[in-house]
């Protein structure tokens, strides 16, 4: 039995040492290779499949990030428009205010009893007040709300990240 085993191992090694082969030592190594080789190959292929799946997940995440960045660009652009809207309203308010003060000074409103001047002063003043009261954003509550929710979502995410960071430190 032992002789048969040794002979087989020597056969795997290319024959006995005396016959010019690798002998039992090489035979044992070859047999080990025969068993381990496929195992390594199968493991490698399994890892390769997993790597493919992980690469897909990474690409998916990358896409989500790219889309989120583009949406942020749109939000930035929207904020630029809000800025323009503020500038427009400021310009109108300043222009009416300038006329309001001019009427007050040029017509000496403080001491005037002239009904025409007082009426004009009152009209300009009341429309100035109406202009000041114009809301900048609330006319488009949907976008405003959406924007608010996005900001609070980002804030929440940041809070969670900060919390995790703190947990990591502690």
């Amino acid at each position, binding site marked *: 039995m032992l002789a*048969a*085993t040794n002979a*087989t*191992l020597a*056969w*795997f090694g290319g024959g006995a040492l005396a016959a010019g082969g690798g002998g039992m030592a090489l035979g044992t190594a070859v*047999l080990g290779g*025969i*068993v381990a*080789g*496929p*195992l390594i*190959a*199968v493991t490698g*292929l*399994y890892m*390769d*499949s997993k790597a*493919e*799946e992980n*690469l*897909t997940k990474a*690409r*998916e995440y990358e*896409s*989500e990030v*790219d*889309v989120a960045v*583009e949406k942020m*660009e*749109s939000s930035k*652009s*929207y904020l630029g*428009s*809000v800025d*323009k*809207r503020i500038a*427009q*309203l400021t*310009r*109108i308010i300043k*222009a*009416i205010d300038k*006329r309001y003060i*001019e*009427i007050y000074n040029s017509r000496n409103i403080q001491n005037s009893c002239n009904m*025409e001047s007082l*009426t*004009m002063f009152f*009209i*300009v003043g009341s*429309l100035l007040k*109406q*202009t000041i009261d*114009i809301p900048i*954003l609330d*006319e*488009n509550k*949907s*976008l405003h709300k959406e924007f608010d929710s996005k900001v609070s979502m980002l804030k929440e995410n940041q809070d969670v990240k900060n919390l995790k960071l703190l947990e990591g430190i502690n």
Partner: protein
Amino acid sequence: MILSAVGTKLTGKSIVDVLHTIAENHKITEEQQTRRHEISAIKDATIEAIKNEREIIEKLLNKEFDLKNSKIDELFVRLDQAIESNNIEIVQSVLATIVSLAKDNPLAKAVEFASLAKQKNRGRITL
């Protein structure tokens, strides 16, 4: 002899296993490559749609702001003339027009357009 038989048996089984794993790996690789192409195509389409929407809204808003600003400038010229000539009725009417123009928010139009665009794209582009 026994070891030889075991070795042969192991080798035979292992080769089948390896071949099976190769086939499986090939299938998974192809599936994942296809999915990655899909992801990339959807991402490009989504980004393109967002960019287009943004560009249109920007153009729309710029046009609206420019148009309104020039109208308001004209109205202020008329307001000055009315103040100069003490014409209270015209002062009131011009100022009311200015205030109504100021109240008309161009951003509301952008919101309307954005929601229309979203409805149009709904279900078509999803990651």
